[in-house]
C-alpha cells in the first residue's frame, strides 16, 4: 500500500460515515447503546493516542521531553486555556528542554 492509497481510502471511509448518518433511520440515534459506544469510542481512541504520542517511539517506550510538555498542556487545560495556547505551549516546552539539553 502506498501512502497515497492510505490517504484516499481513509478519506473516502470518513466521507462514507458522514453520508451514512443521512441514510439511516432516526430511531437508531435514540437507542442508548450505540450512542454510548460511539461516545466512549472517541474517548478511548483519543486517550490511547495521547499515551502513544507521549511515550511511544516506534515499538519502544521512551521517557523524554514530551512528558513535561504534556504535563504543562494538562495544567493549561485545567486553567481552561484555549486549544491553540495549549498546543503551542507544549511545543515550546519540548523545544526549549531539547535546546538546553535538559531532556532528549
Amino acid at each position, binding site marked *: 500500500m502506498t*501512502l*497515497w*492509497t*492510505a*490517504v*484516499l*481510502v*481513509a*478519506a473516502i*471511509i*470518513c*466521507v462514507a*460515515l*458522514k*453520508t451514512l*448518518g*443521512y441514510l439511516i433511520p*432516526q430511531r437508531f*440515534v435514540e437507542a*442508548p*447503546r450505540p*450512542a*454510548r*459506544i*460511539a*461516545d*466512549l*469510542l*472517541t*474517548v*478511548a*481512541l*483519543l*486517550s*490511547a*493516542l*495521547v499515551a*502513544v*504520542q*507521549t511515550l*511511544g517511539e*516506534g*515499538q*519502544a*517506550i521512551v521517557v523524554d*521531553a514530551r512528558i513535561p*510538555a*504534556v504535563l504543562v*498542556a494538562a495544567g493549561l487545560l485545567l486553567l481552561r486555556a484555549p*486549544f*491553540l495556547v*495549549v*498546543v*503551542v505551549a*507544549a*511545543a515550546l*516546552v*519540548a*523545544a526549549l528542554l*531539547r535546546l538546553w539539553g535538559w531532556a532528549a
Partner: protein
Amino acid sequence: MRRLSRLERVTAAHATPDAEARRAWRQGLGVALATSAYGVSFGALAVAAGLDIWQTCVLSLVMFTGGSQFAFVGVIAAGGLPAAPAAIASASLLGVRNIAYGMRMSPVVGTGFWRRAAAAQFTIDESTAVSLAQTTRRARTLGFWVTGIAIYIGWNLSTLAGALLGDVLGDPRAYGLDAAAAAAFLALLWPRLRHRQPIAVGIAAAVVATMLTPVLMPGIPVLIAAVVAVVVGWFNWLGVGDAPPEEPDDVAERVGLP
C-alpha cells in the same frame, strides 16, 4: 461558550427572525475563525509525519474531520507506511461519531440530492453544535451551512499554510512538534472527561495502548484500546441510567476543530 449560548438562547426567545439569522451567522463565523487558526498545526504535523503537501491538503479537502485527520497522521508518524492500515482504521473509528451528527442534521439541512450530498461533507462537530444551539428552524439550517462552509474554506487554507511552513521547518522534534501532537489529542479529549465512565475508559485505554506498544506493530495498540470502549459501553459499566449520553456542548473540537 456554554454560558454565552444559554444567555443568548434566553434573549433569542424574544428576538425577530432577522436577529435569529444574524446570530446564526455570527456564531458560525466566530467558530470558523477559531478553527481555521489551527489548521496550521495540522498542516505542519502532517508534513512532519512524512506526508507531502498534496497528501496533507487532500486529507483536509476530502476527509475534512479534524480528529480523524490528526489520528491518521499520528499513527503514520509512529509507524510509517507499515502502519497505514492501522492509520486508516484509527481515522475511520474516530469518524464514527459523524454518523450520529448526520442523523441529527438530516431533518435540518433541506431536501434535494445535491444539497444533502453537500451537507454530508460539511457535517462535523462545529456545524452540528452551532446548528443545534439555534432556536428557530431557519436559523438552525443557516447555522449549519454558514459554519460548515466557512470552516471548510478556512481549514483548507490554513492546512496549506501549515504544510508549507512544516516543509520549511525541517526536524520536527527540534520544534517540539511531537509533543504538540500529544497535547492536541489531550486537548480534544479533555472536555469529554466529565463523568466516571469516560474517565475510567480513558485511563484504561491509555494503559492498554502503552502496555501493548512494545509487543505490537505501531497503530495496533490504539485499535485494541478502542475495544475497551465497546466492552464498557455495551454493558454500561460505571454508567448512569440508560439515558443516551449527551454530547458536551463545549467540546474543544467544536470551538476549534472540524
